[in-house]
């Protein structure tokens, strides 16, 4: 239907151009010595010609308008797409992640097994992802495979599930009926809507860890903090030496939520997620304690001055990469910067000239509440792959999506990018082939991080709605800047959850 409409539109376009040509043609010079009769004849001819042209023009415009309405109507319909071949075709993959270099690596690995499926990765900015994807996946000219994310993030499965096929039959065929037990739970539940498997997780990201510049810790003779008091002391030491301690772009509240969830996991494991689901109240004493600790990070000199005026990306990331600060709150996605080349590139991007890579090490979030609840991370699928219901190459698109998310080779390729923790249980990065900055100092910590993250029991954003996400912004920044009391912040969060019930 769309093809027919397009051909008709082309024909009409040509017709309209033909009709409009008289507007652009130079007028024929009139003989100034014409007779009076000839003049009348010319005027009459002119009226007739212009009359016909006007009618034709009006008809053309109306025709184009009607065709446009028809074409628009057909775009939103449920036109069945031809599935194509499972091993042959040319497909497009849209996503905000991975970056181009990693996507090329993944596609190259895929083409070793499926050389006849050409995959083109189109990187879309995360901020405008929803805006560009919405119209695209209602058309067969849009992406065949597109990234989806759990919860309230951009590319949310709840929003885009209507434009994707159900991958349950395909994944059952690939991994068996017990496929859910073979994949990380964070990648299954968060990308399923009802019984529909909208996306399959390529890998997950987990937060709840801090990253330190070990070289700076060595220089100042301090050890990574394990308690709130130690954290304050470490920061006091750095500050005394004119060195920045901990940096956070607290104006970008998604990372505030990470820090606060890490605090809450330490105060009372599971309370943060339970409250977001309405299973416990935000006025529970554990939240009061958590918010007090959150506020103390600002009041007791751990957070840098002016934190809520900065964004995590690029401000805090650049400041940490430039060596201005010794600690930052980031998740497993930061593992990629433990690699020499990636770190040099990140430092250059942060404005460091001729950078010397430093020893980047993950540490667990300090026991800030003194409860002993540590090593508890939380995470979601970083991105899942969904197959467009409008794709003309659904079979090839499904082959690619399944290979990347469920096959040993695909997941190994994902693991080796160090951007995500693989979804397929048991797959680890091939550390021996990865060129770390300081392998002796980093390797054990990185392996430990991978293990702890893989066992993470709770989600990061999957249980947080868009409204609750916004309420967290107001609550956490409000408490930090003394513009909101802790009881008011708790009440505001609870009001959102109550409204959602």
């Amino acid at each position, binding site marked *: 239907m769309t093809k027919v409409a397009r051909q008709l539109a082309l024909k009409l376009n040509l017709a309209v151009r033909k009709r409009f040509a008289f507007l652009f043609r130079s007028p024929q010079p009139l003989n100034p010595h014409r007779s009076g009769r000839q003049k009348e004849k010319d005027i009459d001819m002119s009226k007739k010609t212009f009359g016909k042209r006007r009618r034709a023009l009006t008809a053309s415009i109306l025709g184009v308008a009607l065709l446009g309405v028809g074409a628009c109507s057909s775009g939103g319909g449920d036109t069945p797409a031809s599935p194509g071949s499972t091993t042959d075709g040319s497909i497009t993959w849209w996503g905000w992640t991975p970056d181009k270099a990693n996507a090329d690596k993944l596609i190259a690995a895929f083409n070793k097994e499926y050389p006849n499926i050409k995959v083109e990765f189109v990187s879309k900015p995360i901020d405008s992802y929803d805006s560009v994807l919405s119209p695209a996946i209602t058309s067969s000219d849009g992406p065949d495979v597109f990234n989806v994310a759990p919860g309230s993030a951009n590319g949310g499965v709840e929003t*885009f599930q209507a434009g994707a096929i159900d991958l349950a039959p395909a994944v059952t065929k690939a991994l068996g009926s017990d496929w859910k037990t073979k994949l990380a739970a964070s990648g299954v539940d968060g990308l399923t809507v009802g019984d529909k498997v909208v996306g399959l997780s390529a890998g997950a990201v987990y937060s709840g860890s801090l990253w330190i510049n070990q070289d700076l810790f060595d220089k100042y003779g301090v050890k990574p903090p394990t308690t709130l008091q130690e954290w304050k002391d470490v920061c006091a030491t750095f500050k005394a030496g004119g060195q920045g301690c901990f940096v956070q772009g607290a104006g970008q509240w998604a990372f505030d939520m990470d820090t606060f969830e890490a605090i809450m996991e330490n105060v009372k494991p599971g309370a943060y997620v339970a409250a977001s689901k309405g299973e416990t109240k935000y006025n529970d004493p554990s939240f009061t304690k958590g918010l007090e600790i959150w506020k103390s990070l600002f009041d007791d000199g751990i957070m840098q001055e002016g934190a809520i005026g900065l964004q995590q990306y690029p401000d805090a990331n650049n400041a940490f990469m430039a060596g201005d600060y010794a600690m930052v709150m980031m998740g497993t996605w930061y593992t990629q910067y433990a690699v020499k080349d990636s770190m040099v590139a990140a430092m250059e991007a942060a404005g460091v000239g001729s950078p010397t890579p430093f020893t980047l090490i993950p540490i667990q979030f300090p026991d800030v509440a003194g409860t002993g609840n540590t090593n508890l991370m939380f995470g979601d699928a970083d991105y899942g792959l969904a197959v467009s219901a409008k794709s003309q190459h659904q079979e090839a698109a499904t082959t690619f999506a399944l290979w990347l998310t469920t096959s040993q080779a695909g997941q190994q390729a994902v693991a080796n990018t160090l951007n995500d923790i693989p979804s397929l249980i048991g797959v680890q990065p091939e550390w021996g082939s990865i060129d770390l900055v300081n392998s002796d100092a980093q390797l054990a910590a990185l392996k430990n991080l991978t293990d702890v993250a893989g066992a993470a029991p709770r989600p990061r954003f999957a249980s947080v709605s868009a409204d609750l996400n916004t309420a967290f912004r107001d609550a956490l920044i409000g408490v930090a800047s003394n513009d909101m009391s802790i009881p008011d912040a708790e009440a505001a969060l609870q009001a959102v959850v109550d409204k959602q019930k």
Partner: protein
Amino acid sequence: MSARTSTEVREGRSAGSAGRPGGGRPQVQQWKDRLEGSGIPWILPAVILVVGLIYFSIGYTGYVSTLDWNGFILSPADHVGASNFTTMFSDRVFWLALQHTAVFYVVTFTIQTAIGFFFAALMHSQLKLGNVYKVIIFVPTVLAPATMAPVFRNIFDTHGQFNWLLEHVGLNFLARPWLAENGTAMPVVMGITIWQWTGLTFILFYAAMSQIETEILEAARVDGAGNLRTLWSIVWPMCAGTTAALAVLGFIGALKTFDVPYLITKGGPNHATEFLGTYIYQTMVQQKHFGYAAAISIALLVLAIGGGVAMSIRNRAAEGK
């Protein structure tokens, strides 16, 4: 059937017009001539385009404002009537954004007008290197806010150049995280806007002053008016039209403010630099409340049209006095 009716009508009209002076021309032809004379056929394509693109979009936004919808075309939408508007009127952030818009408009318009007028007068006083100064004043207007945003974020950072400057001139007590405090973030946003748009105000005043007859200024001199008196009593009133136009443009610009607060402060901290534009973007893109965002957009439209019309009427009334 239709062909027959058409013929009858044509015949009827011909007969009806036979007795008129100059009769004999079919009535349809007269109607066509009148239509042609009115120019309607010539503006019709533009009307279709404008109505189709702009007014349809406004109408569609009005329709969306009655929905509870996440914005994805395949997702179902619930009709909620005027519920989004009810929510809007009880939304603290909406009123905060309006309040910010009012303060922002008054401050930026007043300061831009004062500086622009002053510079324009200065440039008319045969200053050496005048053209260089004109370029310097006007350049910020052509710089994209997206290009300048990282620079300003850096300048007003806790460890930025502005605090460095304050410390080096003995004003350490004023140094602070400018973008992180409620009380200072908005002045920074207003300062950047003034820096950016004063060039345009200057150029318009400069052009307006060029239109003033030199004889009028000379007459003022003969009557003993000094520089300030001439500026205040002659030049300023004669630039009233420009000031009025800038006032309307500034008002609509203030309502539409988005780029500077979004790029510099993201509307924060604590909504301290929230405007209608940033709030619409947040509710639509981040929270996926397309219906609610559309309701705020309609409010913005009504304010822009209402305010613009009111100011124009007031200006015309002032001109008539």
